């Protein structure tokens, strides 16, 4: 069975993919479905779901919650993807160098990684974003900074063991240049776990971003799910819908990504083929 076939037989993963696709679709169609800004104070404040023609109600300033969720999908997915890409890239780079060259370089880089893992990551993210002012770039940077060490460790482990693999040794003995050994021999074989980790990292990034926004550390110009919850959390007793729906959106998205990531992990792991 190919990985794709294996993935297809995994019902949970397929459900995840479906939800994810729906979320992506929502994100893509947000400007069509809700052409005005999600910040637009479109209606009366405090409208309950379905009241006044607002599917999910309005918030304390009369902003359409459904519009916020649709536009929030764009923000959450995009931010998470960019942050994951940045974190993965950094992690792969560090991990590859450490794992391939070993010795002192490895020692040094792993110390650095360990150091970053010692500081509670969420605390670090909060501090970075707060100090350098909340904006897309600082949020992406902070998420990347706290998530690269995991990737680096994984990649290092992969490289460490793949470096000893006979086909890699063979390619060294053949006289292939180092960059080819790294990029053509080792990296493609380490890609499976990296893809899986990266996909799960997207989920973590969404959670991180929403947690930051919840604390008021989101980009103030971007309507995000975490923001919606954070802004309305004091109203939970009077207006449950304001923070319930964005939470459901986060939940579904993160769940979907996890399902897909797990599915990918199973599909890409040949050991599990029966």
């Amino acid at each position, binding site marked *: 069975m190919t990985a794709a076939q294996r993935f297809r037989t995994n019902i949970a993963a397929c459900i995840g993919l479906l939800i994810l696709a729906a979320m992506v679709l929502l994100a893509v169609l947000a400007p069509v479905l809700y052409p005005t800004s999600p910040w637009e104070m479109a209606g009366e404040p405090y409208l309950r779901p379905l009241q006044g023609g607002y599917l999910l109600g309005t918030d304390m300033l009369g902003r359409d919650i459904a519009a916020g969720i649709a536009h929030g999908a764009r923000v959450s997915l995009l931010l998470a993807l960019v942050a994951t890409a940045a974190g993965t890239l950094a992690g792969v780079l560090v991990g590859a160098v450490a794992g391939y060259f070993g010795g002192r370089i490895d020692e040094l880089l792993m110390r650095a990684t360990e150091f970053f893992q010692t500081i509670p990551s969420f605390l670090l993210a909060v501090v970075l974003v707060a100090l350098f002012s909340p904006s897309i770039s600082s949020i992406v940077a902070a998420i990347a900074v706290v998530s690269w060490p995991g990737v680096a460790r994984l990649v290092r482990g992969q490289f460490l063991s793949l470096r000893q693999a006979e086909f890699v*040794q*063979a390619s060294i003995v053949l006289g292939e240049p180092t960059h080819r050994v790294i990029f053509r021999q080792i990296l493609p*074989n380490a890609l499976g776990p990296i893809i899986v980790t990266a996909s799960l990292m997207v989920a973590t990034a969404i959670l991180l971003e929403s947690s930051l926004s919840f604390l008021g550390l989101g980009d103030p110009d971007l309507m995000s799910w975490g923001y919606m919850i954070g802004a309305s959390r004091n109203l939970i007793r009077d207006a449950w819908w304001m923070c319930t729906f964005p939470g459901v959106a986060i939940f579904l998205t993160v769940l979907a990504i996890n399902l897909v990531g797990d599915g990918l992990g199973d599909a890409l792991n040949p050991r599990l083929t029966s």
Partner: protein
Amino acid sequence: MLQIRGLDIPLPGGGERRFAVRGLSLDVAPGELVCIVGESGSGKSLTARAVMGLLPDMGLRASAGTITFKGENLLALPQRRMEGLRGREISMIFQEPMTALNPLMRVGDQISELFRIHRSGFDKAERQRRVLSLLADLNLPDPARIAEAYPFEMSGGQRQRVMIAIAFALGPSLLIADEPTTALDVTTQMQILRVLKRLQAERGTAVIFITHDFGVVAEIADRVAVMWRGELVEQGPARAVLGAPAHAYTKALIDSVPRLSADARAERAAPTQPPVLSVAGLSKIFRVRKGMFGAERKVEALKQVSFTLHAGETLAVVGESGSGKTTLSRCIVRLMRPDAGRIDLFGEDMGQLAGGALRARRKAIQMVFQDPHGSLNPRIRVGPIIMAGPLAHGVKPAAARATAERMLGLVGLDAGAMDRYPHQFSGGQRQRIGLARALALEPLVLIADEPVSALDVTVQAQILDLLRDVREKLGLAMIFITHDLRVAGQVADRIAVMRQGEIVEEGTPAAIMGSARHEYTRQLVAAIPGRRLI
């Protein structure tokens, strides 16, 4: 005592064949030692596990047939009853001694657990006494210490003895041993076989011994059963089957076993030219830390190793696991840097080379690896795999392609292989591809690190033939690393015996086999199983 009748074990859909075991019938009499032989995947282990009622629970189960043990059909026995039989009436030893014991439990506890499980009613002191006496019975030194030890503190041979102790603890009537010595060195293997044989004789236990090694069969079997693709193709008394195999497959199997004949090749004339490769005073020390809190330990993997290799000559390096064979080969091809000594290739010191110069020089010395699965990048097609060498040394793609096709032809594969991926080939075919890759650079020296030890005997024989062929055609000098003296005797002009990082003896196969000077070499030769028969 044990009767297997018409046993079928179907394979879940999508496998290469429908049945793992098909229509198998076999009898084992009390006190008898029956060997089941057959190549990898022939269904030996599943048969054994079916008897134990321990088929791997991924949907494998016996679909037809009966297994009758002392009048009871084991396949129909309730779980409880079966658990009562296991360990007490029927016990089993597994192949991998390194993983067969619970790593977190003291060895003594693992043995005495058996008494608890089967409610032997022994008190603590009695259990302890029995554990110690069992360990002593197995010639284990200092039983009291061993009982207190954890598995990781013991060697493979010791662990396998503990397994045997567990198997014999309650004096079962039937013991199933699934390749219990395959992972061990020949000398250790011989000790284990002797202990097993002795206990079996002393206690009158019936044994089903699974192996793929006809040497072992010859050494211990009363009766032999040969399996092929899930079916029992032949069975009979050991002598009869080995001497006059009836089935063609059995014949092929037995023919593939390397002969211990020392006369095969004429002595080569003393070389006149300077050696292609000369190694002098090579040393390598590893510093390892055991566990997190362990102290640093030095492993002297190579101690002052020296030898020379002449054009067209094959030097076999034999030695037990951990003797430093692989380390030697890696140092020579500069996958690692030796701590001391020099390696001269055509009089040029390899140790001085680095970067581009080293890469250029690599062309002359190539390597074939042990694991046919691991030595080919699963994500690259065969063509590019073979072409990679020439391309790295500046050959134009078209020319590299031509070379690759030529090399495939040389190793007996057709050019259509170029566009397929490694996993689409069998183990033997892959080993050919690995050879083609090494040869594509037209090296002068070829190092083969246990190139056949992962293969079945029949395939092994083909590859050895191919190697001989190629070597003659190309006039290669070759270093052939193996732990199997039979194989070494077949391929080598000279044999170097390694032990703990040192070459203890070097000589022609005839000299090594016939009149070894070194004690260790003599032990090695003596430990070759089935010497008398095959």
